């Protein structure tokens, strides 16, 4: 790949964020749709180009003229119809966010190489706050998987959105933990927004869409390829206030994510493992470099300041139905279902069904015919 033809000229690193008016107006938006479909040019190059040229349209012109990006990019840029990109996004229920849009997460501009456009399916990202990233090995240990589920559900129950990469292992365990606790979660894909990768994740992604969102900087149709995963990880770090590393070998994607996070001023938490374990290499290295060691989700919540035992709606997990919220709010001590019938005004079968779905989310439990709150819900 011919590198940095244009960027090499400027010695100073470009400023943070995007130049004024970079994505302003329909023409710039179309240019961004085309650029999101290119596979050669790196986000870092786009970012530098933006500060040199000022607008997305001018950037695209540079690429088309062969002064930026690869040769393949030049050919592609001439051929791709921006309408088709947005139509394909719309077809899979996705919307394209440019830096101009309100919903474009402001935190992303902390990155050296923020995505110039972001495709999103599901809930408005502004509603999914606060956000904590959870990353780790794809080939994690069973214990690592359990731990990731616990972290995910602890965060989910505390009303914190879990951000991860939808990969096998720790990533999907974190997503699932959050879903189980009725929490919200964001999956950042390393492939086109319409590509479910790994293929077994399709069902989970559907579940995620019910209460959370799926995010990708790649236009529809871009296949999943390993070299894109580190780039995906920087978005996980960018979206999150802090990143938790559960397991990872040395020089792994998890370590890269954590380094991204440190570079842009995010807190990093790491879960220690035995020094003899390969999977503990990344977290132990991070701890040695100053990451905060956590022994469990309680440590994490305490450090983040989410553990104050303040009751009330603010701390109820997101994604609950109205009846679930009502029952959970009314549930105090150990009560028999009929007490809840009286205090909520719901019918008996409805109370029972709601209690079960709360049980499924780990928010309530049945103790010998009485029900009480459980899990990490206050």
């Amino acid at each position: 790949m011919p590198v940095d033809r244009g960027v090499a000229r400027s010695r100073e690193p470009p400023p943070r964020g995007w130049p004024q008016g970079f994505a302003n107006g329909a023409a710039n938006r179309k240019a961004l749709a085309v650029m999101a479909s290119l596979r050669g040019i790196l986000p870092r190059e786009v970012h530098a180009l933006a500060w040199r040229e000022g607008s997305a349209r001018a950037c695209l012109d540079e690429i088309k003229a062969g002064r930026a990006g690869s040769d393949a990019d030049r050919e592609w840029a001439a051929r791709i119809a921006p309408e088709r990109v947005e139509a394909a996004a719309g077809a899979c229920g996705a919307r394209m966010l440019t830096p101009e849009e309100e919903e474009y997460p402001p935190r992303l501009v902390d990155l050296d190489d923020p995505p110039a456009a972001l495709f999103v399916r599901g809930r408005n990202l502004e509603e999914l706050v606060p956000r904590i990233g959870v990353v780790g090995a794809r080939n994690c240990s069973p214990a690592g998987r359990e731990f990731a589920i616990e972290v995910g559900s602890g965060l989910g129950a505390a009303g914190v959105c879990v951000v991860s990469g939808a990969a096998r292992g720790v990533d999907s365990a974190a997503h699932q933990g959050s879903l189980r606790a009725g929490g919200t979660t964001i999956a950042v894909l390393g492939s086109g927004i319409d590509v479910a990768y790994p293929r077994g994740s399709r069902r989970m992604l559907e579940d995620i869409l019910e209460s959370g969102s799926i995010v990708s900087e790649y236009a529809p149709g871009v296949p999943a390829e390993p070299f894109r995963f580190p780039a995906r990880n920087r978005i996980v770090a960018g979206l999150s206030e802090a990143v938790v590393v559960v397991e990872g070998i040395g020089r792994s994607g998890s370590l890269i994510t954590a380094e991204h996070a440190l570079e842009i001023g995010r807190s990093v938490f790491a879960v220690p493992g035995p020094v003899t374990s390969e999977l503990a290499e990344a977290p132990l290295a991070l701890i040695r470099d100053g990451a905060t060691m956590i022994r469990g989700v309680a440590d994490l919540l305490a450090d983040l300041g989410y553990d104050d035992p303040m009751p009330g709606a603010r701390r109820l997990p997101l994604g609950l139905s109205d009846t679930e919220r009502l029952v959970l709010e009314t549930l105090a001590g150990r009560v028999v279902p009929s007490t809840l019938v009286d205090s909520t005004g719901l019918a008996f079968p409805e109370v029972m069904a709601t209690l079960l779905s709360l049980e499924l989310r780990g928010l309530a439990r049945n103790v010998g015919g009485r029900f009480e709150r459980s899990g990490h819900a206050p």
Partner: protein
Amino acid sequence: MYGRVIGVTVVGVRGHRVAVEAHIGRGLPSLALTGMPGAAVQDARGRVRAAVEGSGLEWPLRRIVVNLSPGNLRKDGPGLDLPVAMSVLAASRQVPVERLGRYAFAGEVSLEGGLVSTPGVLSVALAAAGAGLEGVVVPASNGAEAALVEGLHVVAATTLSEAVGFARGSWSPPEIERADPTAPPSGVDFSEVRGQGQARRALEVAAAGGHNVLMVGSPGAGKTMLARRFATIMPSLSREETLEVTQLHSVAGLLATGELVGGRPFRAPHHSASVAGLLGGGSGFLRPGEVSLAHHGVLFLDELTEFRRDAIEGLRQPLEDGRVVITRIGGAVEFPSRFTLVAAANPCPCGFDGDPRRACRCDEHRRQIYRSKLSGPLVDRIDIRLGIPRLSKAELLGEAPGESSDAIRIRVEEARERQRRRYRGGGVTCNGQLPGPVARREARLTTDAERLLARAVDSFALTGRGFDRALKVARTVADLVGEDRVRPEHLAEALSYRGTGDGSLARAG
């Protein structure tokens, strides 16, 4: 001189036709019985002579041999007294033989010539009808029972002389009222249960699907009270079922004079019961056990953990096959035993684990040993597991009284009817009897329900058996509202009856 009378001996619950032949020959006065008579039949020798003489008839003072044929079948029970007496009277030409060939005779005689209540008369009557006989001659106190068999002439005699009079044509028996057995008022009703909304509902589901139930709760929570009322919401007995139940109770000698079993049986054996007492058996005459006396009804095992281990193990066959097989030297005897099991247990040895108002005094080790008793093959076969909380006074009074048994039973019967139609010809009649693979096929979940199930498998770590149980119970919940497909809310309810896999049912959650 020779005489021949038809008698019936009862093996298990089945009556077998026995030809009772008497021969009077020369020799010292004696009575010999041949043809594998059991101890109770041997006893007849003394009784029969006294009864004949006590009735003003003549006992032939010669050598008498009475043979019971077929000779390879062991005969037991006192019901052969009357045919033995009649055969001797026939051989000595004191009664004419015309009527003897068309009637079966059964009944125990007293020394003064009366006929006393005899166990197993219904089985005798069924065998007589099956053999194409015209009627039976039985003790008057067993008349109503025999009259359950349609198309059979029942001669209910109070004494041996009346039976002889009938054979001679000089006495005609009174007409027997063919009373349709109606459920005797059991004296309890579901409306008396206060609070316990979840348990009431769960028992309705159990009755509707024929599911076994385990209730775990502190002493005084109301487990026994609920169990007693469970039989009152089960569907009414069909005629066929009434016959089967009455037959078993008759064989066990449990029918009070002139009374029939109308309602579903409720049997509550104490936990000190022996294996033979629970499953049937005994020396000599085989008696049906509690599992068979609970046939078509409820077997309530209070304090399940206190029962003997071999007794609990022995319950597996009757629970799975709906019958008990007792193997003896003379062959295997079978008793039907298709009952609904309702078991109850404390949550821990002291009984107060999980109780909000009393602290549990058990240490964790003892609690674990206790919980391990609440798992295993028997509990595996229980579809519905419930925690029964001990209610405070406020909780008891806070809830409106529930529906009456009659109101609940209407819904239960409708749900059962739907199941009967669906499984017609499949060898099962209700969801509780479905084998796992069939349950998976028949449950018919909606897509949403399937998703819920997938989540539950994950969240609750359901085992394969737990999975099947949830499907069966969910199918019943859907049948109660007449839905063709199992919807998420039906499955959710079923899942709330799941208990947990590790036996810690008290802390179901």
